[in-house]
């Protein structure tokens, strides 16, 4: 439109069209100045995500603030990373830190290097988008895509009884104390090592030399092509999830490195992280 008015003004010499052209061009400059004012002085911290799975949206957070003035219509995205999506905030006032939530999506699992946060705004007129990249290096580990597990569970991976009365096996293991692990949901409370727990400030359970055979070590084959490896990682993650939900101890070895058997959400994180790294690190690291 500006070009059209410019051509018309030059062609006809109509001074009022020059006036309109001047207004349009000045509006473009004013737009640049106001969007610059909106972006100036913004400080961004990457808060990250609770967990990012491939092929599904995950919540990603940035903490933003500015010392003075207002910012409007800000959008946040990760510059240069294979992540789709952005966070958005209508306005940001001076003085207080606000957390922006964005829904991002990663196409495949693995470590994603985050090099910078792109802050952009379409303020004031919504006609142009001005952006600025704030350099901050970080690493986001995208877990394997979540798929329903089709593998059948081993026969002894049955649901584990919970609580003292309903536990027919009174499973405390025997033998010498082998290790102390954090108490996980489903663990028998009689296995809590109270002295050590009191010292550590959290509930720890004793692991004896001889315990019941409800532990599984999952193995990820090496030398799989990329797509098959991704698929395999997803399957193992799904199987591990099912086993852990049944209270089993699950470990991992193979292409994803070694994860010692364990229970609970933390163990699941360890396994997912190891699976996310599979193929991206030399075996054994």
């Amino acid at each position, binding site marked *: *439109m500006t070009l*059209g*008015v410019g051509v*018309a003004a*030059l*062609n*006809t*010499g*109509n*001074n*009022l*069209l*020059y*006036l*309109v*052209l*001047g*207004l*349009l*061009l*000045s*509006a473009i*400059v*004013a*737009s640049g*100045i*106001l969007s610059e*004012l909106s972006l100036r002085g913004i400080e961004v911290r990457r808060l990250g995500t609770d967990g990012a799975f491939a092929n599904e949206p995950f919540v990603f957070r940035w903490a933003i603030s500015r010392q003075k003035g*207002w910012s*409007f*219509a800000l959008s946040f995205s990760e510059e240069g990373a294979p992540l789709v999506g952005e966070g*958005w905030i*209508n*306005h940001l*006032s*001076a*003085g*207080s830190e606000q957390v922006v939530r964005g829904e991002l999506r990663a196409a495949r699992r693995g470590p994603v290097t985050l090099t910078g946060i792109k802050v952009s705004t*379409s*303020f*004031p*007129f*919504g*006609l142009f988008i001005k952006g600025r990249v704030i350099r901050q290096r970080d690493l986001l580990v995208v877990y394997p895509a979540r798929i329903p597990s089709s593998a059948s569970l081993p026969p002894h991976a049955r649901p584990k009884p919970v609580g003292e009365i309903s536990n027919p096996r009174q499973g405390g293991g025997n033998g010498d104390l082998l290790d102390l692990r954090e108490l996980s949901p489903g663990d028998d409370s009689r296995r809590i090592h109270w002295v050590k727990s009191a010292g550590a400030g959290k509930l720890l359970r004793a692991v004896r030399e001889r315990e019941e055979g409800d532990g599984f070590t999952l193995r990820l084959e090496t030398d799989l092509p990329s797509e098959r490896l991704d698929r395999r990682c997803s399957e193992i993650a799904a199987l591990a999830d099912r086993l852990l939900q049944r209270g089993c101890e699950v470990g991992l070895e193979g292409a994803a490195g070694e994860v010692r058997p364990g229970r609970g959400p933390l163990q699941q994180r360890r396994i997912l992280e190891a699976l996310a790294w599979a193929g991206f690190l030399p075996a054994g690291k």
Partner: protein
Amino acid sequence: MSASAQKKVRLACRDLAAGAAFGAMAISGALPTWAVALFAGGLMLALLNWRAFGERTLFAVFGLALGALLLYSAAAADKLDLVVAACTFAALMTFSRIHATSSPTTDAQVHLCSLLMIAGGAALSAEMMFAAFLAAFALLTAVSLGLQTIQSRGSTEAEAVKAAARQLLFGAAFAIVGCAVFFAVFPRLSWNLASRRGNRFQGALMGFADPVRPRGDGRIKSNPRLVARIAISPDPGVKSLNSYWVGRAFSQFDGREWSSPDETARIAPRLTIRRAEHLLHQDVELLPAYGSPALIAIERPAMFGNARAHLESGQTVPTWLRQLGETHVRFVDSGVGYSYQAYSTAPLEGNPEDELLDGEGDPQPYLQLPASLDPRVGALAAEVLGSERDPLRAAHRLEAYLKRAYRYSLELSDAADPVADFLFLRKAGHCEDFATALAVLLRTQGIPSRVTIGFYGGERVGNQYVLRAGDAHSWTQVLVPAHGFVTVDATPEAHRPAQPSVALGWLTPLYDFLDVRWRTWVVDYSFKDQAGLARSIAQPAWAVRLKLPKLNWRRLGIIAVVLTGIAACLLAGVHRRRTPANAASVFLKRIERALRGVGLQFEREDLEHATIRLVRERHPITRELVPVTRRYLEVRFGGRFLREGEAVSLARGLETACSKYRRAYRTRFSIVQLP
């Protein structure tokens, strides 16, 4: 402000911007009346949030197609100018879009169509009001687009909307200033080929009719519209010129009307009326309100030439001139406005040294009288003149008599014998009555005379002089042997120039001041002006001679006081903005005032500790005090600003609790004291 209220504000801004864009076209007066009525009505309904089309896009498309067909037909049949048809279609498109359900696409379409209308307005007229509509369009569009941008994914807090509106208005103001700078410096490669200088909105006001009838309507005297702009060289330098601008002279009077016999026409690009030295050059622009093809010039016109007609299409074409009578010169081509150059000699005063340059040799046509003339007219002339027979002295004696014995009035009605009606019945009239009466009175005594119409005055605006419709005037010229026609004006001096109404008295000069600058610096701005501007910027500072005007200390004092006040307000505003804790301090003072009312004064502890102490003591007002204290701490130290009206609401709650406590305490106290 709720989300729906914010949306309403945004849509109102959008629709008003479209209205401003339409106004930029409508001031040209070129748009069809039905289009103006349709758009104005549609805009009113849209502002009331009644959208005729809503989601019915197909209906709107059919309507537009029908409108396009009608406009094309009218343009093809030469009933409508093509540019006007295009502008009308842009208005129809905007109308259909503002009546559709709002969406980002619809909003963008409205803004685009509005911009098209603004461009159409630039093509249709060169009126100063275009600038006002353009500025309004810029401001409203900026606010509308900005609100749309920040509300595109949900509503925003009122405080943020205000801050955004401030920034948007700043942006729009910047764009307007930038627009002026761009306009001034962008090189002009061609000169105003397509600007339509005409404005048909109010039509022509003047027009020199062939017959001139006394006792006619005199309301034009109060009309302030400009009809002509004249640059005079050498510049007289006076504020009011008070000159007679001759348009046309009449010699025949039939008792009701003045007319002139048909005379042989002389057509030429340049006409010389009389040869003379010491000519006064006039560069005249006749505006559309003038409405006549007759040329005017300061008494006595000597030469006309270099005439150009401004056509409705925006083109300016050279035109030849046609001389019909001694003082009656017309343009050959018709246009909505004209420009030409005229030269005049000094008017004759009837002095012996006046040189006879006119060819008014035969006095017979200027002695003609109507057969039905009332015999009392001649008797009156004879009575006033007595034995005086010198034409000029006789004319001055009658002039003095008419000024003394007759009243100026615009409240007139038509009469069968206007001269007798004026002289013997109403004894009041306007310039045509005075001029006619004087000419007829002179003729009854055998003194040749005629009536001339034109303008009286010339008010300085900028470097030019302007004539208004109200300056239209009529006067008498008496033929003095060996000297020619000498002007004698019986109309009282105060009533010769325009007499604008009191309400417009102060507004009109301001408008003219701006309008002259608009035309000089915008409409007619050219490469030559740019070169002049560049030279003035490039001129070294030492070469600039400063001419200090005579100082008016009273005015300077007022200006200094006003400027100091503005500066103080601005500084106070800046100070308020720089101290975000200010709101918290105001809030705290109000809390402390409320607490003092119940005898609680904190001299050695702050509000936080006092509140904790009162909570421990289980004071009755702690229920209201705790949230107030918490909010104060958030505002003061947490950067969580108070929402609009929040401080008032919290403080009122606390004050109510305090007053309740006070009443209860007094009651209890009185009960204790009574025994």
